[in-house]
């Protein structure tokens, strides 16, 4: 008894539990989902999603409260604004994606409890990754995120495309995280056994071990660039995006990219400040190649999900400019604003594709022809989100890109910004191609659209109207956010400004 008391008092002094309270709430939600499903024996599955939503909302509320009163805390986490903003982004991603995913599993008649479980665990992994400053915590949370995403992508086990996607994802994420671990081991060894990121910088003498630091930086770059799907490490993205279920792609296209962005920024800012020139050049090269490759290949795609995969590769190329352009007065404001807007644009686009593919069972771009006549709401919200992705004013994508490129030009990245502008114009071409296809009236409709019914769904119509509302809610939320965020650009920039560390 004495030991337990002393242990608890020591625990309370070393770890301040209020800083990880959002994550603890998510963990409680996860355990509740498992126990509820066990007790209910599989019935009443909507209740599980309600638990998920409630825990996400409560987490967001507590995170808001913490954002207002920044609590300083050492050792495992640092609660500066950068980390808290990323945790908030990941909670937003989880929240919107759970709105999208309710009807899917009911319609496809597979078991339901594991889906919110994997989504909560992926969100949890992403949140802890956003504020970890410890090599071990970074690795464990990265593996948590990767493993949960892999299970999510292989969720529809009857479909062979899903099996292929999850196999590819598992193998390639295993290979890349082993390369990341090798880079970490070099850092661990040469800094005399330090695991904390701050202590590593103190103990490594950069002048003496410069080749080793360069090798370690190369391996860490390889490991993190996989998650970000930058140029030579992007090969998994189209196949995994095409094979996984659409809701799952919506979720991990934003969550894992946001978490990987925070990891990348923190690692390269904290550990390799003396190598700034070297890794700036390499990352600039990677960003330029991803932008060019993503946009050029997206022009030729015939499947909507593959096209969105290549466009997300190019969007990350743009965000890399924001990372490179960080300076003292503005911090990472451009990257954070563009990430925030990108979350809504991307989730909004997927929120449109999801009911369309559910109703018609196809993902080809050609089958979207003349959608305007059958379902104007879907068409217009999809038009808004695609234009925002392309960067047309007055939508918020334009403001995000404008700020990003202006910041980049000011920081001296002339080549990158020029390439980014040119490839933005190319991207407008393929987004407008889809919009033109949807909005033009064709006399002979495609066969799939002839049988398109707005109320059609695979289960009874009562469920479809009840659940259609949640997807509609997500659609409207994302459409509003991607349209109106441009007007609120200034307060957003002001919040994200103070993030240089």
């Amino acid at each position, binding site marked *: 008894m004495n030991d337990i008391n002393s242990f608890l008092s020591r*625990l309370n002094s070393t770890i301040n539990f209020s800083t990880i309270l959002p994550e603890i709430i998510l963990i409680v939600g996860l355990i509740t989902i498992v126990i509820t499903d066990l007790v209910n024996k599989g019935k009443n599955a909507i209740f599980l999603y309600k638990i998920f939503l409630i825990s996400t909302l409560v987490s967001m509320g507590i995170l808001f409260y913490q954002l207002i009163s920044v609590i300083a805390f050492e050792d495992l986490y640092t609660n500066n604004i950068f980390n808290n903003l990323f945790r908030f982004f990941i909670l937003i991603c989880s929240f919107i994606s759970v709105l999208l995913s309710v009807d899917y599993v009911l319609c496809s008649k597979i*078991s339901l409890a594991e889906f919110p*479980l994997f989504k909560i665990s992926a969100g949890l*992994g992403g949140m802890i990754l956003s504020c970890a400053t410890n090599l071990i915590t970074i690795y464990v949370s990265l593996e948590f995120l990767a493993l*949960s995403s892999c299970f999510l992508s292989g969720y529809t086990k009857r479909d062979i495309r899903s099996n292929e996607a999850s196999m590819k994802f598992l193998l390639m994420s295993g290979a890349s995280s082993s390369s990341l671990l090798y880079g970490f081991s070099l850092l661990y060894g040469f800094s005399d056994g330090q695991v904390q990121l701050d202590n590593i910088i103190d103990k490594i003498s950069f002048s003496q071990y410069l080749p080793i630091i360069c090798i370690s930086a190369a391996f860490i770059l390889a490991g993190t660039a996989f998650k970000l799907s930058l140029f030579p490490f992007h090969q998994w993205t189209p196949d995994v995006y095409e094979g996984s279920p659409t809701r799952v792609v919506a979720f991990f296209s934003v969550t894992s990219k946001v978490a990987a962005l925070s990891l990348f920024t923190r690692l390269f800012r904290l550990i390799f400040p003396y190598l700034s020139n070297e890794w700036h050049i390499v990352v600039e090269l990677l960003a330029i190649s991803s932008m060019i490759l993503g946009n050029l290949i997206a022009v030729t795609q015939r499947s909507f999900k593959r096209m969105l995969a290549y466009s997300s590769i190019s969007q990350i190329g743009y965000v890399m400019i924001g990372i490179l352009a960080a300076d003292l007065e503005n911090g990472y404001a451009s990257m954070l604003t563009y990430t925030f807007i990108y979350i809504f644009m991307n989730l909004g686009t997927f929120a449109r594709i999801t009911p369309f593919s559910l109703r018609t069972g196809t993902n080809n771009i050609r089958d979207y022809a003349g959608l305007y006549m059958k379902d104007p709401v879907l068409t217009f919200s999809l038009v808004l989100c695609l234009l925002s992705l392309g960067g047309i004013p007055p939508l918020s994508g334009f403001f995000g890109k404008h700020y990003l490129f202006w910041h980049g030009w000011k920081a001296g990245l002339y080549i990158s910004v020029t390439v980014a502008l040119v490839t933005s114009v190319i991207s407008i071409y393929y987004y407008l191609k889809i919009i033109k296809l949807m909005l033009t009236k064709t006399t002979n409709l495609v066969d799939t659209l002839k049988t398109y019914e707005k109320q059609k769904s695979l*289960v009874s119509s009562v*469920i479809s109207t*009840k659940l259609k*509302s949640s997807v509609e809610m997500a659609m409207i939320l994302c459409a509003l956010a991607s349209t109106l965020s441009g007007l609120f650009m200034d307060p957003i920039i002001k919040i994200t400004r103070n993030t240089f560390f």
Partner: protein
Amino acid sequence: MNLSELIHEFILALIEPGILVGSIGTVSFINTANSAFSLGLVFTCISLLYFALNADFIAAAQLLVYVGAINVLIVFAVMITDQSVSSDSEKRGIGYFTALGACSILFLTIVCIFHKINDFYSSSIHQSEYLKLNLFEQNDVQNIGYQLLNKFLVPFELASLLLLVALVGAINPARDEDEGKDIAENQKKSFVSSTSPRDKSSFF
């Protein structure tokens, strides 16, 4: 060299050929059961190496996890699957020689790095500092346990959650789906009967 160093070198000289022979056997045996067992030999010799390097916790963990669980699982899986007929590896195309060249370059690089590091660390300054750390009197297991619950509490608990999610995820593709169809039918019935008076626009 005094006697203890001589014994140490002798033990290492016994263990390392074991690892080498075991790994060559793993890749070149035609019978897969033989290669699975030689993988077990490799893991056991690595565990003995950890013992010789005075890391008792890691050695015990290696024996328990790798030899006791992973190797047993591999042998189990090999025994269940059919024995494939041996494939002829007579054709050695350009890929073989490219891989051979790349691996030998990598091997020579690693050997050079190890020699340089060995020269660096066997200078007398580092040896005296290393001996000052007095590692031989600490209890490894107690230290690891203390650190796990104090400094590394968050990764420790997160790893336990990871294990839970991994278990659920591993069972999920593999289980029988007859229960799924029954559950879906039950839900269809319950939804049709009970949702008509409810407000259709609200999610809750």
